[in-house]
């Protein structure tokens, strides 16, 4: 689309932002419509105890009546003004219910990113440099094995190894009592973060390796070498920036995946994050909480991709010129 082009990097970022907002708007409609299918929250909350009298009492209490379209715009308006509504299950403001949990999950994801991203970029790059040598073979195959293990398997194995059966070094669960912060319990964070790192690192390092190999074989690296630049300069100034571009996309996708996919890990470690909150809210048909979480996770995805795109453009010289 011609009208979408031009304006340099600033224009690019603005266009991306606008497109991100459009995506989020569409997401909001899908989220709203599909969560209506969750059914009567009053019944879900009471479960077996949904006797007519208790049901009637709760339905009245929850005010489950008004037009759907009106509800959507009311909800959207609330979202934009930061009012996420009230949890049907706990009758507390959604922001209050989720606040701590978002912070907890964020700690997990950020820590996992801080550890896994440099680690996997280093492993991937080094493997590419030493292609077909011992380090490459060992790391590639190890990454393949790790990538093949579903994360709940990794989590369960870590617990057995480090907490319950072989060694007794680390606590097996990470409950983070309300009112405290996840980082107050560093020992409880080790295993959840390690599991996430093991889940993410193989993919990032594999892509990094492939991308680096491609760049190393490219003409401009060849050119730089021919010009007589020192190998170190060739690698750091020319190869790495170009190779890392595609990797940002993978990192973004993996981090976005973590934001929603921590469910399993939070369940194994009883860690009070958004994954557990989502499972719980879906089971309780707690529509406002499900909606808020779905929007949050979608927004994280959109923002991470935006950042990845911008970062890719900024670090990759040959792309910057095309803008």
């Amino acid at each position, binding site marked *: 689309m011609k009208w979408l082009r031009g304006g340099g990097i600033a224009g690019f970022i603005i266009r991306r932002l606008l497109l991100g907002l459009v995506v989020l708007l569409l997401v909001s409609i899908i989220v709203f419509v599909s969560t209506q299918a969750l059914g009567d929250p009053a019944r879900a909350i009471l479960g077996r105890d949904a006797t007519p009298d208790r049901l009637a009492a709760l339905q009245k209490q929850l005010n489950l009546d008004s037009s759907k379209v009106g509800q959507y715009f009311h909800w959207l308006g609330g979202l934009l003004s930061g009012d996420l509504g009230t949890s049907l299950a706990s009758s507390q403001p959604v922001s209050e219910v989720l606040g701590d949990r978002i912070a907890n999950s964020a700690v997990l994801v950020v820590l996992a990113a801080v550890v896994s991203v440099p680690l996997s970029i280093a492993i991937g790059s080094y493997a590419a440099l030493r292609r077909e040598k011992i380090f490459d073979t060992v790391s590639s195959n190890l990454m393949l094995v790790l990538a093949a293990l579903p994360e709940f*398997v990794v989590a369960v194995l870590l617990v057995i190894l480090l907490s319950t059966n072989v060694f007794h070094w680390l606590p097996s669960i990470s409950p983070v009592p309300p009112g405290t912060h996840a980082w107050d319990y560093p020992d409880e964070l080790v295993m959840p973060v390690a599991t996430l790192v093991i889940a993410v690192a193989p993919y990032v390092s594999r892509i990094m390796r*492939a991308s680096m190999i491609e760049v190393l074989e490219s003409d401009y690296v060849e050119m730089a070498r021919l010009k007589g630049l020192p190998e170190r300069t060739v690698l750091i100034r020319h190869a790495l920036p170009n190779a890392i571009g595609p990797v940002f996309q*993978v990192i973004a996708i993996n981090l976005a995946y973590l934001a929603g996919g921590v469910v399993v890990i939070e369940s194994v470690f009883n860690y009070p994050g958004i994954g557990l909150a989502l499972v719980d809210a879906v089971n309780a048909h707690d529509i406002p909480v499900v909606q808020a979480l779905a929007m949050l996770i979608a927004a994280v995805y959109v923002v991470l991709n935006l950042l990845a795109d911008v970062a890719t453009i900024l670090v990759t010289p040959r792309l910057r010129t095309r803008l």
Partner: protein
Amino acid sequence: MSATESAPALAEGVETPTPPVRSSALLARSLRLWRTRIGAILTLILVLVALVGPLVAPHGSAEFIAKPFTSAAASNTVFGTDYLGYDVLSRFLYGGRSILVIAVISTAIGVVLGVVIGLVAAYARNALDDILMRAMDVIMAFPQIMLALVAVSLVGAKNWVIVVAIALTTAPRVARVARGAAQPVVERDFIGATEAMGMSRVRILFGELLPNILGPMMVEATLRLTYSIAVISALAFLGLAANPDAPNWGTMIQKNQGALAYQPAGALLPILAIALLTMGTGLIGDGIARTAAGIDRERGDE
């Protein structure tokens, strides 16, 4: 998001070779690599276990043997009994079929759908491209496991729900890669030539474009299959399999993991099976990627 404009797509690391390699030739050539061979053998063994297992199982899948988690010796079986007192080995032999069938079907649907959308988008190069890729972005904004989880909780843990949820979340990811791989091909002269010859669009898409991106697509398909197996077993692990007590590797891990410390086979066998299976498909994908990228060309081994 990256797919519009000229930001790099995920697949940019995997350049397609020229001239186009036929898929059979690509497979055959990739099989010269040891990693592809190992992957193929692993995958074959596990598929065999899944398909033939029920025929050779020593006991029925719901035949009570002894108290739950009885040892092999005490129950006179190979691996002891599981959480319901059934024979672990027999449950294992029965348990691969459903997970494999669901994974293959859902991945196949997702890949086909994704390739079609990606090719159409790449070839269209206009508003249709933008619309399609925006739609893909909307779906991709929901992580796979989360969408599957919500769908299963909404409709119930039925097999078709799991298939639809996985296919739906697989398609946009494949579409992105397909589009990214097809874009440079579209720019090439021979596509312009075929257009000039008046070839139909369908033939251009599937006769000319598709063969040129088969390499990355095969890699993507194996990667997606790996993910699908992981998601299905994770759902089972969260207790969301269609029938939570039917023999199923994912369910076996969930239900038997409590006994990992003293009757490990019930959980370890399916863990190993799933790990080896995903490793196998991963190795095949890796081998094809290397062959297609021209790495290790004509070397035959590593």
